[in-house]
């Protein structure tokens, strides 16, 4: 994990523009992959929200899908049942709802540590899953929620069947989310989060209100996850139970570990590699694709603890040394 702090230059380096250039290139060069691309962008935003709380603040959670799922359902229910169809308004509503859930659950779980904390995050995600499962009249239960109509963005850009609008919309939203997270981690607040991850005992001893800082970070993270969930609803025009519970939380964790935890761009690389591998493996081996993901994860955990970006860092360091 890298630490950004008082010595770190906050200016954006040229390498940090590469993911955005690649994303724009995909739009023009691979039009048939835009629906998958939009989905990957959504999960990058989701992974980014997890990286803030896990990679920087060191809070391990298996319940982050609670916020993602809540955002997805809030956007879906408001659109399908209440006729609120403005896409940006729905994003704001999802962020608000996820933020409220984040601050209330965070206030409880962040008082605990270790396994207790992990189990509590899991429990919260499981409760959200069951609520969505049972509240069939509102959520559609196991059948999911369809009939979601979304207005054109700014009344001008209609969601088209090729996924062009959805892709650009997700890309711009992700850019905003990335910019926000980046500002936070380069700020003094971000430095305190890293400090809490590194040594919570010492943070108390230098007078930092650790709990308060964690609740704030957790809430911001929840809001971003909620926006990611709402984006998924809007691009799919459907919400299913698969956005909630242990599975998407665990999958997200795997994606982030794969890319590299606490590196900001691990959240970009992880979902990209994971979802492309998933897409390809599912075509080749429809029944065994999880095995392929599992092998990749085992390899990363055994040989590259810093994830794919950790491997890249190692290679760059090796090239630079001879100079």
């Amino acid at each position, binding site marked *: *994990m*890298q*630490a*950004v*702090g*008082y*010595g*770190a*230059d*906050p200016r954006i380096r040229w390498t940090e523009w590469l993911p955005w250039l690649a994303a724009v290139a995909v739009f023009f060069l691979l039009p048939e992959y835009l629906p998958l691309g939009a989905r990957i962008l959504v999960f990058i935003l989701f992974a980014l929200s997890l990286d803030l709380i896990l990679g920087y603040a060191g809070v391990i959670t298996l319940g982050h899908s609670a916020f993602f799922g809540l955002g997805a359902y809030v956007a879906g229910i408001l659109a399908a049942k209440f006729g609120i169809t403005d896409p940006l308004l729905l994003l704001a509503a999802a962020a608000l709802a996820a933020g409220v859930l984040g601050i209330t659950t965070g206030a409880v779980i962040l008082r605990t540590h270790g396994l207790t904390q992990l189990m509590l995050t899991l429990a919260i995600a499981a409760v959200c899953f069951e609520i969505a499962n049972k509240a069939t009249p509102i959520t559609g239960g196991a059948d999911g929620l369809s009939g979601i109509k979304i207005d054109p963005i700014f009344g001008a850009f209609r969601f088209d069947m090729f996924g062009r609008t959805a892709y650009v919309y997700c890309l711009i939203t992700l850019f905003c989310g990335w910019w926000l997270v980046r*500002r*936070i981690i*380069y*700020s*003094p*607040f*971000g*430095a*305190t989060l*890293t*400090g809490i991850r*590194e*040594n919570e*005992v*010492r*943070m*108390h*001893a*230098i*007078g*930092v*209100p650790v709990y308060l*800082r964690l609740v*704030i970070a957790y809430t911001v993270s929840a809001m971003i996850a909620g926006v990611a969930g709402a984006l998924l609803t809007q691009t799919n025009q459907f919400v299913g139970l698969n956005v909630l519970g242990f599975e998407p939380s665990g999958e997200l964790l795997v994606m982030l570990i794969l890319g590299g935890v606490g590196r900001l761009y691990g959240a970009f690389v992880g979902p990209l590699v994971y979802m492309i591998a998933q897409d390809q493996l599912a075509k080749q081996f429809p029944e065994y694709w999880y095995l392929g993901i599992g092998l990749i994860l085992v390899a990363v955990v055994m040989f590259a603890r810093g994830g794919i970006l950790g491997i890249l860092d190692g290679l760059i360091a090796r090239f630079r040394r001879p100079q």
Partner: protein
Amino acid sequence: MTPVLETRGLCKSFGALTVADNIQFRLDAGARHALIGPNGAGKTTFVNMLTGRLVPSSGRVLLGGEDITRLGQAARVKRGIGRTFQINTLFRNMSVLDNVALGVAERHGTSGRLWRPARIYERVRKEAHDLLVMLGLEDDAGGRVGDLPYGKQRLVEIAIALGLQPRVLLLDEPAAGVPSSELERILRVLDALPKDIAILIIDHDMDLVFRFAQRITVLVQGGVLVEGTPAEIAGNRRVHEVYLGEQRHA
């Protein structure tokens, strides 16, 4: 004169085990005071009650006459109690400068700002840097703390606490585990600490204690056995029996 830090009848038990037994203690302004005692005497428990990590079972802790017994750690730091740890308690993957800057920023009240980059907080960086210069660590400012030799890590321990500008500084075995080649450097740093800070050093290295302290309190089995000047302690028969004698045989 009101002592800077005072405890009255401080007790702490875990079930039937009493680890602090009616401790009366006072630390005067600008003092160089040492707390010694054999292993398990309750020195660290006592320090944890002073800093707010542990809540005493009974008794009071006063800072400049104000009762702080019920205050949490952060509130006590704001009122001027700083500490170091016997076992390095550092932000290992952060730079040496950041280790110190975190505490400085907290004191300035800017550490919760979450929009502008940390780097633009020049006063925090300057103050942290000045502290590193004072301790001779300026060449290591940008390096990762975990990569420093152990002796320098002990100095960072002290630098972090000094960044809080404490009125009272509790040094928990500042030279613990330091190889003799690096010991002299730490001793020089201790000698050069600002005179207006009241310092309580917790240690059982007698050379260090007798060189540094003007007063010594001996803690045995959770209670104060005796308090006095280094000469008085060195000449005290009971101290010899329970503590110095034990050292000689060890």
